């Protein structure tokens, strides 16, 4: 048997909250940190912002002022991939929130069904963009979150059990 190279033995503590410990020790499946970052953040929908229907300069939660006219929003149509083409539309006014969500693949579920390949098209432009993303429909299967980190192997794991 080929020998491995010796390295200094190390133990590292991982502190965690009670809820995460319970989930790691019995529920099964793997929970990933899904970062909803695909596209440009629409400051006026992220983090509970308001919709405006008039062209008015408004102060945003980020501390800057933005033009709030509807047509100036960063929002996207999102489609499920169909052999490299636009398939079923799963998002109609998607905008990234910038947050990381706990996204669980339950034991027995296919990871490719939970996180699937999709395409985004920017609604602000006349061109049809085809921006590749990985889509997650949220815990209820009725939402739309998109990440530009396409390969789940590059995501952090929150816990696994």
């Amino acid at each position, binding site marked *: 048997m080929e020998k491995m190279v010796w*390295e200094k033995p*190390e*133990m590292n*503590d991982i502190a965690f*909250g009670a809820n995460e410990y319970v989930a790691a020790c019995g529920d099964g499946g793997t929970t990933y940190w899904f970062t909803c970052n695909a596209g440009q953040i629409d400051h006026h929908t992220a983090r509970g912002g308001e919709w405006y229907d008039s062209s008015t300069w408004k102060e945003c939660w980020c501390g800057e002022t933005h033009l709030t006219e509807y047509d100036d929003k960063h929002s996207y149509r999102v489609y499920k991939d169909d052999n490299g083409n636009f398939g079923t539309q799963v998002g109609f006014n998607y905008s990234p929130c910038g947050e990381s969500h706990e996204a669980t693949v339950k034991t027995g579920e296919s990871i490719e069904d939970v996180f699937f390949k999709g395409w985004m098209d920017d609604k602000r432009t006349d061109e049809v963009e085809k921006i590749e993303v990985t889509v997650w429909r949220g815990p209820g299967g009725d939402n739309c979150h998109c990440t530009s980190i396409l390969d789940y192997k590059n995501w952090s794991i929150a816990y696994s059990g």
Partner: protein
Amino acid sequence: MKEYVSPAVHIIEHIGTLDNEQIAALSDSELEAYLLEYSDLAHSRLFRVNDRYILREIAGEHVLVPTGDLPGNVMITMNRTCTFLWEQLQEPKTIGDLIFAAKQRFDDPSGELENHIREFIEYRVKTGHIWEVK
């Protein structure tokens, strides 16, 4: 009738000045005196894991999960050499046993293997992850 004890062999490092033939020629009492003089008696001490830590493999990482009255909000990840030592110490072993076994499994280009193992045992006995077997 004597109680049965599983046979066990432990490696005790020899750091004295006599060669093997000279040692073989010593009487029992001379050998004992020689070992006391030259052999670090710590090498005959036995160690094993604190069995309230359970070894699990999670997402490709080896993790120690505390049980019993240990604090339950901290798990411990281990690299591969630490995992190797932990697996070895499931049964009582001397430091010499561990060094011998590690040299069978790992190349040691830095020459730090023995020091690392000694430091690991010394430290982890203090932290309670490793127990000395009396």
